[in-house]
């Protein structure tokens, strides 16, 4: 079940961590008999892993539901403090997003809410999904320029980045405007077209667009691929994908999604990710079977890379330009096996980008 260490011995700490994570993701409660008995040090390790993987809200809320066999007082206090902080940060994030969409909406600008905020509502308890920033995409370059002019004129400095994105801070929350809807390089233009974006409104008064289920699933798969090819990926992004497959069940055009995966050369990649979701996060196969899901026996390598990397590989030491290049070359065999077209395209762009500088 993906809980074995490299030496194939069962690691009770990881097993407990994963059972808590699965419980938090599914919203199904746990009893003491369902997780290994842990001592204080092992609970400390569960806390460290949850923080590293930025899934503290999900894991700690599941631990909070244990009537017996839960953490000792000190570890419980750490979890209580963290859950309180996550709740406050979530409120700040929601208020910031609502305020930003409201400001833009008054000028007729309706962006697509991507990634974190766009996927949090698919979780059984959205506020437990920690989000670091707000990611927005606009249906045209003109609309994005108008949005950024509006922000600048209202006293919010906006920085244009070399990769084409824009960054600013809105009411204490980092916001990024993306030039593309997905992180994929080799994607048919129709898959990113606005025909595939549907209206969703959290409240009656604040407009906000969400990618369609098919587009969002492709976006999440591509996002994991991009970071796996580079510095690494964390479990939170897998949780997002699991929440999306589950949350979109019955609303997904599986034939269209299957075609999109195939046209982007991601069928094998999707099968690998799907195996991680079913074997490690406990996602029911019925959410993947309509896509012709075929489990990949090598999924444990991906699991280990994820545990090692943490949130976007931020726990793996030095980064920088040379570090990025090294990471891409180190991951070449893996990436070439699962998404060769994307990998070659990404490496080519990195190469061109470097000789232009």
């Amino acid at each position, binding site marked *: 079940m993906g809980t074995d260490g490299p030496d194939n011995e069962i690691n009770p700490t990881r097993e407990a961590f994963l059972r808590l994570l699965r419980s938090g993701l599914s919203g199904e409660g746990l009893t003491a008999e369902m997780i290994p008995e842990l001592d204080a040090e092992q609970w400390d390790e569960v806390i460290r892993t949850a923080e590293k993987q930025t899934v503290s809200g999900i894991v*700690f809320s599941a*631990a*909070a*539901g*244990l*009537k*017996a*066999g*839960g*953490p000792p*007082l*000190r570890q*419980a*206090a*750490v*979890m*209580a*403090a*963290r*859950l*309180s*902080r996550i*709740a*406050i940060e979530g409120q700040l994030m929601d208020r910031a997003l609502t305020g930003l969409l409201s400001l833009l909406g008054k000028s007729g600008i309706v962006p697509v809410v991507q990634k974190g905020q766009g996927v949090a509502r698919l979780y059984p308890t959205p506020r437990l999904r920690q989000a670091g920033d707000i990611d927005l995409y606009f249906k045209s370059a003109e609309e994005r320029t108008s949005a950024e002019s509006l922000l600048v004129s209202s006293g919010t400095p906006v920085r244009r980045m070399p990769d084409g994105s824009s960054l600013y801070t809105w009411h204490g929350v980092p916001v990024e405007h993306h030039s593309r809807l997905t992180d994929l390089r080799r994607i048919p233009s129709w898959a990113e077209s606005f025909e595939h974006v549907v209206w969703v409104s959290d409240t009656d008064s604040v407009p906000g667009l969400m990618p369609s289920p098919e587009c969002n699933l492709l976006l999440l798969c591509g996002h994991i691929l991009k970071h796996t090819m580079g510095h690494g990926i964390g479990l939170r992004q897998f949780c997002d994908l699991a929440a999306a497959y589950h949350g979109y069940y019955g609303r997904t055009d599986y034939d269209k999604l299957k075609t999109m995966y195939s046209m982007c050369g991601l069928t094998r990649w999707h099968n690998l990710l799907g195996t991680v979701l079913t074997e490690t996060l406990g996602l029911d196969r019925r959410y993947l079977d309509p896509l012709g899901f075929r489990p990949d026996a090598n999924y444990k390598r991906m699991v280990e890379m994820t545990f090692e990397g943490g949130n976007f590989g931020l726990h793996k030491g030095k980064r920088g330009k040379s570090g990025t290049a090294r990471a891409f070359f180190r991951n070449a065999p893996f990436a070439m096996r699962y998404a060769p077209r994307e990998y070659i395209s990404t490496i080519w762009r990195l190469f061109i980008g470097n000789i232009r500088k």
Partner: protein
Amino acid sequence: MKLNPDITLQKIGSMSILVNVAGAGGQDLTEVYNLNDTAAFLWEKIGTADIDVNLMSQWLCDEYDVTPEQAEKDCKYLLGQWEQMGLTMK
């Protein structure tokens, strides 16, 4: 008098833990308190309302097998402790 709005109650397993979410960002464990069941019951019942000893005593009598006199005495003692620890505000 009200409960300090910077303090929130979190239940972790069978424990009821008060956390000060202001200032140290909820990470300062010197400001974490573990309440017993009765205190947690009263804390939740009070919520954001004004603190009323008579009402608290009534809640205790309704929930537990205790005389009104003992309930009032216990509530006053508890509020004194909460006040000392900065868990309430005027």
